């Protein structure tokens, strides 16, 4: 019998075990954790929902300007990022799976691949934003595109629209992709931290629930992009064989 110097009788569910003392068993704890996370995700849906609503309303009001703005997005970048995020959702699901099977190295490996995908997404987004900055399509900070392209401004005015409507498209574009990118950065910080924890064996012995919760968050960020992609990139259509690639 080993001598346990810090084990009073009332501490049967010790703080070092995966089961917290307020739960009967791991299944109950898992359900409670998942419920809490899903509640948080519901609030996230509502927060992004406000932006999706603003998008819908202004798109209805400023249809021509939104088509023009969307035509300026590079569908190839958007498609690449959609692929990256879907793939990262897949790898994070595999990480959750590996954690459930108590495979320390596989968990860390799939989390690491997820990290790389996530960084790749932000790099692609960075290229797109830099391009917008350079041509002057960043509202409030670098908005000089129509000063240099008066003919396009006139064409929009002839449609009953105008550069000020396009401005609204880009305000919403940067709000939505910006809030999404903030979520990505938070997610990446967590994934990086979890790689360290996974390597230390933190998620073994039935203690894999944090990975599952992290996975739920990551999937939500993926789902938001699933909707952002068609709404922002595909309004003006996809023209791979000429005519595409913006203006």
């Amino acid at each position, binding site marked *: 019998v080993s001598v*346990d110097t810090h*084990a*009073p*009788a009332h*501490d*049967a569910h*010790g703080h*070092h*075990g*995966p089961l917290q003392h307020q739960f009967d068993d791991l*299944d109950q704890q*898992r*359900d409670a954790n*998942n*419920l809490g996370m*899903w509640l948080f*995700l519901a*609030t*996230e*849906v*509502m927060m992004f929902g406000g932006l*999706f*609503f603003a998008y819908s*309303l202004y798109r*209805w009001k400023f*249809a021509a300007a939104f088509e023009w703005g969307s035509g300026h997005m590079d*569908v190839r970048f958007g*498609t690449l990022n959609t692929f990256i995020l*879907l*793939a990262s*959702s*897949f790898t*994070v*699901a*595999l990480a959750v*799976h*590996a954690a*459930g*099977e108590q*495979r*320390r*190295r*596989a968990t860390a*490996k799939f989390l690491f691949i997820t990290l790389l995908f996530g960084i790749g997404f932000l790099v692609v987004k960075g290229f797109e934003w830099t391009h917008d900055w350079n041509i002057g399509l960043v509202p409030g900070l670098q908005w000089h595109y129509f000063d240099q392209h008066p003919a396009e401004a006139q064409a929009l005015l002839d449609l*009953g629209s105008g550069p000020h409507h396009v401005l609204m498209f880009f305000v919403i574009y940067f709000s939505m992709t910006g809030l999404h990118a903030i979520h990505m950065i938070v997610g990446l910080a967590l994934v990086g931290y979890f790689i360290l924890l996974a390597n230390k*064996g933190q998620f*073994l012995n*039935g203690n*894999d629930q944090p990975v599952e919760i992290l*996975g*739920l968050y990551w*999937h939500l960020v993926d*789902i938001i992009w*699933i*909707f952002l992609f*068609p*709404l922002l990139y*595909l309004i003006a*259509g996809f023209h*791979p064989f000429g005519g595409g690639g913006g203006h």
Partner: protein
Amino acid sequence: MAQHPHERDHIDVERRPDPPEHLRPAGHGFEMHAEVTPTPHHTVSVAMYWKVFGWLMVLLVLTLVAAMFDLGWVNVPIALTIAGVKMFIVVLYFMHLKYSSFLIRGVAVAGFIWLAILFVFTLSDYLARDWVSTRVDPIRQGQPPQFSPLPDR
């Protein structure tokens, strides 16, 4: 002899280190390890994750192909339907909602119900605003309000 309070933990919480490198099955690491007892909450297999990922890729290609054709107003419903299907399979399989309790499913749906309230109530206001002209037109003063067939875009 009375059971030590930590006896149970010592059994449950036994460390299960990875086997040494040369004992591990060769390959990419996707295969199941037979020696590890799967935990009961595991309901989705790796094969199913691959299948789901494959379908997500198919849907991604599909949404691009659909965007190549100019179908007028039909483009948007098609793109959103495809996005919705993508979301559904992510939620059901990657996020395990298909195997979750009724309570958790309810919470997941609740977020979207609230979103629907936001959209329906607020849009019904905005879209209907221009149906009745409330502007006072000096020429038409005294005449009934103007009804326009479509909202003024």
